[in-house]
């Protein structure tokens, strides 16, 4: 493996900030210019990220040293396979979301759109930072930056509901990160070799074996729950509450960026701080598998009972995040790779579902599953995409979701946990039960004309909404057929 010094990670990180300057400068009065700047920033960021993929595929890592946080701990950016997978997914989907936002925000005549685009860009910068972090302290910096910069987005509506949601959101995220994560970090940095260890993801993997196994387990718990963005039960309630945000925010941040930052951090801790070898030997690590499986099953059951479409999707997300954490806790190479793949596969599927939920809301103002009867004929593209997204999340071939679930199951068998495969199967069944009825209701149940007077003149959502969701739905197919690159980046290639 070769280390290449390059500024491209930093450019990907700072591009949104340059975009912010333009967005604020253009402002509310030049809305078209503002949205163009957002789109261009997204395209630029994505192309910078994608341009690094060939280097990483050729078994290199790209590094950039930004600044010395402490005497021996640098703020170091490093691009490796896991990081670039996540960064590429997030930045490409940002372009789709930017286009979608135009349709959504204008369609609903939202207020304070400049603020919305500004903080959206800052959040994307923080997401890139997490993806490219090379040590624990760096990842913590960007993690906190993301918590704070998404607060104005969650409370965008500025009503009581938004206030409650915002409070839950921040208290969960900041309380866990400051109370669990910060002590765990200090603990590692202070005691390992008298504070001489940087907790680098490459060089210091497994150094944590310095501690007794009890301490290791406590640290593992502190880290797993400290990264509450991963939505592991019982620190998951912030996510359904964050659904008060406008749908583009729910789509990108609460299905792709923010929650995936959480699980990505968890994967980093499991695979690069503890390391697979250490985890396998750790007594009690099995507890984490149980917690992940419980999260998967319980959240799926809750999702069944949700009538509000976005809330149903939120609980579905919690379950799918559980898959990723599960993959990490299995402590096998296949499991880790499957977890990273699932970040990408689920992102593409779930963002489609959220886009559809938002498009339905823009076109018809409907938020509940029970109101969707007959909508399939009015909005064929949207509901078609919804069906594809659902099938991908359920994990059927030839859609992307199948591949990651396959590797997760392989990882479980590899680790000797046959029952985990059963859990995966049961959960997929539950996915079918809570996702498919939405599309079925929309396509096959007739609309109650008398009850639904205002729905007569309804038509498809604005094109800025329909194009992105069609693209992401097609992306679910694409990820299945062109999964070689991702497999290789996730360390599963041959």
């Amino acid at each position, binding site marked *: 493996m070769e280390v290449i010094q390059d500024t491209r990670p930093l450019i990907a990180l700072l591009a949104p900030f340059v975009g912010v300057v333009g967005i604020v400068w253009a402002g509310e009065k030049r809305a078209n210019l503002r949205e163009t700047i957002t789109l261009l920033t997204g395209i630029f960021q994505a192309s910078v990220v994608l341009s690094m993929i060939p280097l990483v595929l050729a078994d290199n890592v790209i590094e950039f040293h930004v*600044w*010395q*946080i*402490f*005497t021996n701990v640098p703020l170091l950016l490093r691009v490796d396979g896991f990081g670039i997978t996540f960064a590429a997914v997030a930045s490409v989907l940002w372009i789709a979301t930017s286009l979608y936002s135009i349709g959504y925000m204008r369609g*609903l*005549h*939202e*207020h*304070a759109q400049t603020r919305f685009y500004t903080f959206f860009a800052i959040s994307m910068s923080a997401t890139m930072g997490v993806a490219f972090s090379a040590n624990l302290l760096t990842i*913590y*910096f960007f993690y*906190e*930056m993301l918590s*704070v910069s998404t*607060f*104005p987005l969650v*409370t*965008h*509506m*500025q*009503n*009581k*509901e*938004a*206030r409650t949601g*915002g*409070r839950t959101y*921040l*208290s969960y995220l*900041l*309380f866990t990160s*400051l*109370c669990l994560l*910060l*002590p765990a970090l*200090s*603990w590692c*940095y*202070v*005691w390992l070799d*008298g*504070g001489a260890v940087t907790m680098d993801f490459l060089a210091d993997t497994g150094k944590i074996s310095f501690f007794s196994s009890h301490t290791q387990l406590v640290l593992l718990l502190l880290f797993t729950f400290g990264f509450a963005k991963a939505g592991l039960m019982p620190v998951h309630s912030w996510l359904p509450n964050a659904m008060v945000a406008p749908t583009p925010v729910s789509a990108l941040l609460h299905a792709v960026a923010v929650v995936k930052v959480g699980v990505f951090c968890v994967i980093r801790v499991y695979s690069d701080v503890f390391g697979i070898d250490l985890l396998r030997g750790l007594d009690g690590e099995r507890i984490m598998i149980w917690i992940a499986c419980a999260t998967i099953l319980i959240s799926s059951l809750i999702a069944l009972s949700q009538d509000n479409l976005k809330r149903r999707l939120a609980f579905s997300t919690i379950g799918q995040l559980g898959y990723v954490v599960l993959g990490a806790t299995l402590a096998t190479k296949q499991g880790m790779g499957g977890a990273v793949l699932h970040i990408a596969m689920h992102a593409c599927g779930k963002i489609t579902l959220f886009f559809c939920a938002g498009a339905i809301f823009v076109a018809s103002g409907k938020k509940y599953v029970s109101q969707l009867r007959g909508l399939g004929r009015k909005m064929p593209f949207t509901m078609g995409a919804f069906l594809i997204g659902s099938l991908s999340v359920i994990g059927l071939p030839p859609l992307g979701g199948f591949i990651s679930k396959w590797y997760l199951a392989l990882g479980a068998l590899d680790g000797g946990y046959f029952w985990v495969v059963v859990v995966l199967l049961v959960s997929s069944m539950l996915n079918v039960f809570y996702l498919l009825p939405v599309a079925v209701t929309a396509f096959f149940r007739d609309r109650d004309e008398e009850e639904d007077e205002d729905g007569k003149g309804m038509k498809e959502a604005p094109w800025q909404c329909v194009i992105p969701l069609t693209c992401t739905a097609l992306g679910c197919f694409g990820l299945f057929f062109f999964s070689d690159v991702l497999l290789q980046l996730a360390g599963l290639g041959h």
Partner: protein
Amino acid sequence: MSENSIALIFACPLFGAVLCTFLGGAKRALCHPVAVVSLGGALWGGIETLRRVVASESHEISYLLGGWTLDSYPRGVGIEFRADLLGTLIMLVVIGVAFLVALYSKLTVSEETPEKEGPFYTLFLLQVTGLAGICLTGDAFNLYVLIEVAALTGYGLIAMGSARAAAATFNYVILGTIGASFYLLGVGYLYMKTGTLNMVGIQEVIVQQDLADSATMQVAFVFIGLGILIKMAFFPFHAWLPNAYSHAPTSTSCLLAPLVTKVMIYVMIRMTLTVFGVDFSFEETLWTKLLPWLVVVAIVCAATMALAQRDLKKMLTYLIVAEVGYMVGGVWIYNYYGLVGSIFHVISDACMTLCLFLGAGIILRKVGTSHFDGLKGLFRRMPLTMTGFFVGGFSIIGLPPTCGFFSKWYLITGGMLAERWEYVVALLFSTMVMVVLFFRLIERIHLAVKESGEEFGHGHGDLDLPENETRFDEAPLSMLIPLLLSAAVVLLIGIYNQDVVNLVESFLEPLNLPKGTDR
């Protein structure tokens, strides 16, 4: 000029004060420029001194005012200024904060205390002289005198405020005098036992005559310690602080709130490390065992009381009391990293408290009240001011990369290494409270939520605010620039924390404090 840079630090504000007294009548408009210029001179002297201290081999410069000699044993009586890394750093913070407040004060002084510019700036500059003197003096009795200079001018500055300021000042005078008396008595005992007042001289005699077992020394330590704790408003001796600082004029509270308590923490560190010495202070007294628990009580109570406030300025004053607990704890957990954290927190807390008080002053001037109800939707009106204010708030919470994160990091580290878990838990508890406090503010400032009769669902915000309250209406530049500068300083100290910490470490390194990492 350069070798007299220490004298410049005191001479500039002192002569400025004299000038302001004379200008106070007919030409009071000149008082503000005089104050700014004299503090600018002092700032130059301060930076020059720091440069010289860092460059010198022993990291220490002794400056004998009036040519007194100190060669005898025990050292004679004299006016020695001793600039080492610790004192110089804190002195620079004092002058820097005072300079920014002086810039900021132009409008508030003429609006809040009309026609009193002369007395105000005289007291202001004398206050700075006193505080800077405390940081650099090498003599325990001179320290008392300078504490009183700072205290007396402080009483005057606070009493100029609103109608309730007089009562608050009276309260402060009584407690402040009790504290100073305790300190003076303690110094008396020290002189009785050692025959010198010079700080280094006292330490020399303690070591050479092995006075550690002496009951007199114990009494002197308790008296001095108690006096300082009262002066720094350590809970439960904090009763004077909240009223005094919240009823004082805006510029006064901006000057005193960041500095006075922090300088007293410095005095405590100086007394324990330099005068009594590490061995005596930490090993021979009960304070190491006792104080961390008192600190826990202090932090928890002060944070809880801050939570109960509905007035911005009042809330900030309780935050100061909680932060005093952080720093006292950092000293008495008796750990190298705890002390690094404590000293770094003195510096960073001064900057972030300044940032918050400058912001609160602008809000008070614009809205007319500092009550929480007045904050609604302010972000729309004053985005830049509020951004500066938020930076201060993030630093108090301890979010990276503000300086508050780094000081908290060192304090938590120290607490863990010293295995004072009660202190770590108290710090984390207080952090939680700060999160609640500031995001409650941010929520009000950022959102404007209708309190009643509002439909859920698709709201568009700003519904209940009249047009003139959402218009862009930023603070005047003379107030905005100091605020943004202080916010920038908060970020810069965070980003360049290593440079500051290296200076602190080269001060602490020779003292052989336990690090706790060798297990």
